[in-house]
């Protein structure tokens, strides 16, 4: 982009890498690394939603957690409103916690079962001293109302709620800090279709109301498409393609994106899938990354070069980037 | 009654005699503190003692003759060790020097070193002992604690002599030994007393559980037990088990630390003495198998003399209270709290409990601390105690009951009586010495009487009672006589009628 930005983007991720050491042997020496996130860069503007899709194990959650420093990134940089946070001390980080929050995938493990849900939300506020003690309760009830729960339910425990309701509580907890960014790690994957729609709608409403930005992680392209304006496709720790939603659907460049799109079952019996587009094989283990382009082993169009040279993630059109030697 | 058999011919030979033991951990003759019957099974001494504890010749042909400087023993020339080597003067010298040199870890080393200057071999079967000074208990010491192992075997086995093998001249030979578990001995066919022993072998095992010991005996798995709680006595009744006792085998006392500020006060010791009722202990803990204190000597002892005045060692609660009040304790005064150390379990505990109650009667708070017996001994020897419940097994010598207990420097004087820092009575010291120098009770009867009265009044020990030693055996065991002293049973003439 050639425009000089007055204001830095809300979130900038620059060549982020997160590797987990594999410990083996007598002294627990590191014998290798899981390359969970392996050089990811993107930006996310205010009030924007970036959808992130990819197969299981492609590193989506790790990316989300690395951004919030729930796991420590190995290298690269994360900037929140222009300020780099990866090297901040715990204390310094605390200030930034308010800006970015997370919503988790599993509605069952993401709420402490022993604490009334109201207090779960209240705690978020009290830790940051966002409101005087007397007001916290009021604020929590207000928030509950906002996410579609009754104020009286603040006293209930997590196990008394259904999955969808729990996700609402998780969202309320994230909202309690008035963040500008919410990283939603597959927030609807565990929910039934009918409830899924409720939660997606709620998230969209809240985005409008509070001017939130979302990094919305999912493996279901349809859901991502529903809520995001831009979509990033991740594979084995790297972004393969990033584009506007419609651009991606209409004009996918990366063979992996194509395969993903082709694999989506179409809820229309009169349409049949184009034959032959089904991707073969499994995603390789991030412990032993393939050389060159990580996708080459499954890629229908791979050439010799793909096996040796890592393709650059480059912009091929306005807002459309792809990591492929042969496309774009 | 002693065994009435003309010559050494058993009415019946054979059979393995099964019994229990509780403590032996090493069969080397020089490693063992007390003269117990195992030693007499494997080994012989120059001198031996008969059932009445008279010293009689053993491997020596006769009692020693003295030329004023040395004691000369003529040895039998027909004795062989179990390994076939000869028993002779060299073997005697070897064993004595081994003991004195401290090559083996023995509690007797120091004592013998002190008493004995040298051993001389005169000829193959004559040996002479040169004492360092006066040695009134010499005969008894020879009879009880000097036994001989084969020098060849000792040299061969080294520290394992007594563990992997034990070679003596005794009536039985080592077959196998697991310390704290099982000892198996077999008959020595070449025993110097021809025709003995009657038994084929001996099996002594350790059985910790009192009930198992008793039940095994009743069931016939054992032939004899020589240690069991008196409370089991009724259990044997009607079960075909013969229970026998050796009267006044052990002196039971409370060792008093006269260095302790409260206990240094004569009135307090007397008060305690008057508070205790030895009879109650006998009736309740010993099931009646014990004797009250009437003398500082056991009733079987030649020196036994009933004291003229027994009231000082009899219970008198009122007097005790008065004495205590006089000393500033009791109602209106301070509360006296004393700690009693005792071994744990069985009679130890029961006696302590009764004593606790008896002392509580006069307002003394007795705190009982049960500890392992080795701890009791350690504390006793280091003087780190107030009162210790203690049993003393004496010997036939007069000195055992007099000088050893009441003389300053007496080996068993743990009370600091007559010692620096403790309660002293020069007269008692004097009497004890005089008695020690004599070997004939009748000669020193007057001193005995006076010493008794003195110590009964001085209470360097709280006298409780005499405890009888007990054996229980099946009816098939014949010619077994319960010894006067615990563990001194002579099994040589015992035979089994099965």
């Amino acid at each position, binding site marked *: 982009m050639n425009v000089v930005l007055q204001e830095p983007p809300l979130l900038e991720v620059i060549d982020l890498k997160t590797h987990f050491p594999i410990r083996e042997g007598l002294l627990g020496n590191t014998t290798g690394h899981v390359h969970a996130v392996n050089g990811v860069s993107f930006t996310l503007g205010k009030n924007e939603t970036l959808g992130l899709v990819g*197969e*299981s194990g492609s590193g989506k959650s790790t990316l989300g957690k690395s951004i919030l420093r729930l796991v420590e990134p190995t290298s690269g940089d994360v900037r929140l409103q222009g300020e780099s946070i990866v090297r901040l001390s715990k204390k310094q980080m605390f200030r930034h916690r308010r800006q970015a929050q997370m919503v988790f995938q599993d509605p069952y493990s993401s709420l402490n079962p022993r604490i009334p849900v109201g207090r779960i939300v209240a705690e978020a506020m009290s830790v940051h001293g966002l409101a005087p003690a007397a007001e916290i309760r009021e604020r929590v009830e207000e928030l509950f109302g906002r996410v579609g729960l009754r104020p009286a339910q603040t006293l209930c425990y997590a196990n008394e709620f*259904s999955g*969808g309701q729990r996700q609402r509580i998780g969202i309320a907890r994230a909202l309690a800090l008035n963040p500008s960014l919410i990283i939603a790690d597959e927030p609807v994957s565990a929910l*039934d*279709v*009918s*409830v*899924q*729609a*409720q939660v*997606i*709608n709620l998230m*969209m*409403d809240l985005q409008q109301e509070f001017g939130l930005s979302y990094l919305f992680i999912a*493996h*279901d*392209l*349809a*859901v991502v*498409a*529903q*809520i*995001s*304006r831009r979509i990033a496709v991740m594979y084995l720790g790297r972004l393969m393609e990033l584009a506007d*939603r*419609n651009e991606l*659907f*209409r004009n996918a460049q990366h063979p992996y994106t194509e*395969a*993903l799109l*082709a*694999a*989506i*079952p*179409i*809820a*229309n*019996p*009169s349409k*049949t*899938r184009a034959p032959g587009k*089904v*991707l*073969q094989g*499994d*995603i390789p283990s991030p412990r032993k990354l393939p050389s060159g382009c990580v996708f080459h082993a499954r890629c229908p169009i791979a050439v010799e070069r793909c096996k040796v040279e890592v393709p650059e993630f480059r912009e091929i059109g306005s807002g459309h980037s792809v990591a492929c030697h042969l496309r774009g | 009654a002693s065994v009435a058999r003309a010559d050494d011919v058993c009415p019946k030979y054979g059979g393995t005699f099964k019994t229990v033991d509780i403590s032996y951990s090493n069969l080397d003759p020089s490693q063992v503190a007390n003269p117990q019957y195992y030693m007499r099974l494997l080994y012989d001494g120059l001198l031996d003692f008969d059932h009445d504890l008279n010293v009689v010749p053993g491997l020596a042909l006769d009692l020693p003759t003295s030329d004023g400087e040395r004691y000369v023993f003529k040895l039998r020339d027909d004795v062989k060790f179990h390994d076939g080597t000869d028993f002779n003067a060299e073997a005697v010298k070897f064993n004595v020097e081994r003991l004195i040199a401290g090559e083996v870890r023995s509690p007797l080393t120091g004592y013998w070193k002190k008493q004995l200057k040298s051993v001389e071999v005169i000829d193959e079967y004559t040996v002479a002992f040169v004492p360092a000074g006066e040695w009134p208990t010499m005969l008894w010491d020879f009879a009880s604690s000097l036994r001989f192992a084969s020098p060849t075997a000792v040299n061969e086995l080294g520290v394992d002599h007594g563990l992997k093998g034990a070679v003596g001249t005794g009536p039985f030979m080592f077959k196998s030994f697991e310390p704290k578990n099982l000892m198996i001995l077999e008959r020595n066919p070449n025993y110097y007393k021809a025709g003995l022993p009657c038994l084929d072998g001996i099996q002594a095992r350790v059985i910790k559980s009192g009930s198992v010991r008793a039940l095994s005996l009743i069931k016939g798995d054992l032939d004899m037990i020589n240690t069991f709680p008196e409370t089991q006595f009724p259990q044997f009744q009607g079960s075909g088990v013969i229970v026998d006792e050796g009267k006044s085998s052990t002196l039971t006392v409370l060792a008093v630390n006269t260095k302790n500020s409260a206990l240094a006060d004569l009135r307090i010791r007397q008060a305690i003495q008057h508070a205790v009722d030895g009879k109650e202990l006998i009736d309740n803990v010993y099931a009646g198998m014990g004797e009250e204190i009437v003398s500082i000597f056991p009733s079987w002892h030649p020196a036994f003399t009933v004291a003229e005045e027994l009231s000082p060692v009899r219970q008198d609660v009122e007097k005790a209270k008065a004495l205590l009040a006089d000393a500033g304790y009791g109602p209106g005064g301070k509360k006296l709290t004393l700690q009693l150390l005792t071994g744990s379990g069985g009679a130890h505990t029961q006696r302590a409990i009764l004593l606790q109650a008896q002392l509580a009667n006069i307002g003394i708070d007795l705190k009982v601390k049960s500890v392992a017996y080795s701890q009791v001994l350690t504390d006793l020897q280091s003087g780190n105690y107030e009162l210790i419940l203690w049993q003393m097994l004496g010997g036939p010598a007069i000195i055992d009951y007099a000088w050893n207990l009441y003389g300053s420097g007496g080996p068993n004087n743990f009370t600091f009586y007559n010692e620096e820092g403790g309660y002293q009575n020069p007269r008692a010291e004097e009497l004890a010495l005089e008695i020690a120098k004599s070997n004939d009770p009748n000669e020193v009867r007057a001193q005995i009487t006076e010493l008794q009265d003195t110590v009964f009044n001085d209470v360097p020990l709280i006298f409780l009672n005499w405890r009888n030693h007990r054996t229980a055996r099946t009816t098939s065991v014949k010619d077994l006589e319960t010894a006067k002293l615990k563990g001194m049973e002579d099994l040589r003439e015992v035979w089994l009628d099965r």
Partner: protein
Amino acid sequence: MEMNKPILQLQGLRTEFKTGSGWVTAVDDLSYSVNPGETLGIVGESGCGKSVSSLCVLRLLPEPPGRISGGEIWYGGEDLTKVAETRIRDIRGNEIAMVFQEPMTTLNPLMTIGTQLCEPIMKHQGLSRKDAMQRAHELLQLVRIPDAKHWLKGYPHEMSGGMRQRVVIAMALACSPKVLIADEPTTALDVTIQAQILALLKELQDRLGMAVIMVTHDLGVIAEVADRVVVMYAGSKVEEATVEDLFARPRHPYTHGLFRAIPDIDSITSSEGAPTRLEEIPGMVPALDAMPSGCPFSTRCPFVIERCLAERPILEEKAPGHFAACFRELS
């Protein structure tokens, strides 16, 4: 597709579970039938009784706490709810086979793939172990496991989810069953793998000509594989139709709502600008022990009328071959 006599037919199946608050009905009066060579889709939200009803077919329902409290399951001339234990064992894995949802847990981790594959073959076809292995090898090739020989000696944990699911399918197909019940065979898998598995199933069905009951909650999957669809809600069947009919014109408000609640990629990507809201089905599925007295969907239905609250609608043929349990006519 020939529409001859159904090979498997459920009639008024009723299943209950014993819970803390007494017996609750998990499957209520469920009837459906499946013809040879046909694929019947069963769709519904989590907990609506899809798995329970399919387990009943092979009498695999855990008893206790569950029990079949009514209805019949006709296979050939036999009522499977009544046949002897030995007979049902002969049917299991031989004439009717099942594929379960979780590929990670359906295989025995301690046994080699080959041994597990051999088990039904040896049991039902009486083959020797050696022949069974040979057959197992063919089966692995059939489900396109590369290097099948090697995998015969491999263990499940060495395989990826997709491969394991193929093994499970191979195991189900071992004795060429007449009916294959697939209980959400792809839910735990990635889309790309799901596509592989669905394609494989379809191909195998064409080749082997068995009837397939495909249980899923994913309408996309249904659209792709099913010939006829049963829609379940809270334990009962609310709608049944051919897949084209159902997608073209759902006649039950629940099905209707369901279609609108899933994001439709075509319409999303055809519109520029801000994303639009989805249509929701408000509320949630009632708990089994708190079923409304009338229509089970009445608590969430936008078209609810008085009658729905009091009376339970029965399945009516709203159009030829299209059944729905609703008092209202959806247009």
